[in-house]
């Protein structure tokens, strides 16, 4: 296991860890990764990954129109809205 770059990981997760907590999370992450490292000892060269345990659940439904998720419903929980849009700070100059 290589050293964990907590700044990079938190950037990937879109989190800005307070400076004083970086070490706490880095150590915690290190312990847990070390703990799960025992999986590396298992030979899985002949094993396929398992994504869905039941592996047989694709159902096809009729292509019918349902009314759901009206604009007002979707926007009703928005922290800020402007007309029919979510409002965010300016993204492009």
């Amino acid at each position: 296991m290589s050293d964990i770059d907590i700044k990079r990981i938190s950037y990937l997760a879109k989190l800005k860890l307070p400076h004083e907590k970086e070490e706490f999370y880095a150590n915690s992450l290190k312990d847990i990764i070390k703990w799960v490292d025992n999986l590396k000892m298992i030979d899985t060269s002949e094993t396929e990954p398992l994504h869905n345990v039941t592996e047989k659940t694709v159902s096809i439904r009729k292509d019918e129109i349902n009314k759901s998720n009206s604009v007002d419903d979707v926007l009703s929980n928005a922290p800020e809205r402007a007309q029919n849009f979510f409002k965010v700070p300016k993204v492009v100059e």
Partner: protein
Amino acid sequence: MKSSISQIKDSLRDKKISVEELYDEFLIKAKSSKTNSFNLLLDKENNILSIKESQKRYENGNPLPLDGIPLGIKDLFCTKGIRTTASSKILSNFTPNYESFVTQKLLDDGSIFIGKNNCDEFAMGSSNETSFFGPVKNPWKNKNVPTDDLVPGGSSGGSAAAVAEGTCVASMGTDTGGSIRQPASLCGIVGLKPTFGSCSRWGIVAFASSLDQAGPLTNSVEDAALILNSINKHDFNDTTSSNHVREDYSIGINDKLDQKIKIGIPSDYLKDVSGDILSQIENTKKALIKHNVEFVDVEFKTTEYALSTYYILAPAEASSNLARYDGIRYGVREDGKSLDDIYLNSRTKGFGDEVTRRILIGAYVLSAGYYDAYYRQAQKVRRLIKDDFQRIFNDVDFILTPTTPNEAFKIGDKLDPISMYKNDIYTVPTSLAGLPGISIPSGLSTNGLPLGIQFIGNYFEEKKLLQIAALAEKELNFNGQ
């Protein structure tokens, strides 16, 4: 002894109590409770229409399967017009505009929601201590240290505590790695996790989508069967929802077993357990052996890898699922100068420590350079774990294990995450394999605290699973609070 759903329905039918009086009785008790098992309680006015309609159906002699029954709902199910927080700060202002599939089915069958049960934040925890709304207290006390407040288990800790203290008749929980069965065990009640794909995940706040499954926490196995009848349905809105034919799970639940049953006990699960835990298994064996049940030793080859597999896969899926909380579309927004600042501030301030930790683990095991070594390897080991169960089920009908390695512990006692994760050692393998499991209370520890046993069944064999659990329940005759 608490009344079962059938008994309550009889009282309603015989006019010994009205639906409104029943609701009042539970609400008053819930309001005066000090366990913090509800994030939100619904006053009678919120439910008055449903109460009246339910009463009318009783008067007309055609009550629905769960008519008038006051239920708690884990605060992870979206409930239309009722605040749904996942016990997180980031969703503390969220009111869904739609009803989850499972809770809609419960409403369709006449039940009435008394409130939303506290749980671990985003269902991540085994003690209900990670909730933004504070820990839940187990209604049970250690008889040797009665002043200690104990955890109810988690993540459906509020659900378990509420059912155990009698502030709702039953509660809907969710189970990702043990979150129904473990708190049920620590609170002395019944908890059922159905086969993955049985009950739709649509409208449940997602934690780990390949593992999450809804199920009931109840006072009896029969109550669990009645609730399963309502919620176990195919749903096109959940692509992992199975379209197999469902049975009636309560009919014949107490029938005599007409064929010989073989139950495997994994010897590797019992290596280092305490005498208290071991005696739960021994007592169950003694109780069932006279009912045409044979017990055999079985041995898993993958147990030592189950927790590692789980703590790679579940955080990886959580890390993806929780990417949606960005402070833009719903939930709490923390301001920032740029769009990126809003994302960063909202997420950093909105998530608690355990959720942050799991997002970080997930981001790490999915990141470039580590994906194959951790995430992909864990998915492969998951198949080996599933195959291991299938090998054992070729020879036995059920597997019997303790539900938890310990009794309820003191709030604040387990601060180290890995020792907390080990609480789920007996429930996680079942979850990874997607198999159904039920925990029933089996006895008391030397400290006077409830302990549970878990029966694991084969895929979609909930009917048989409930039958064997009902038989064990009858024989063990556990007396709740």
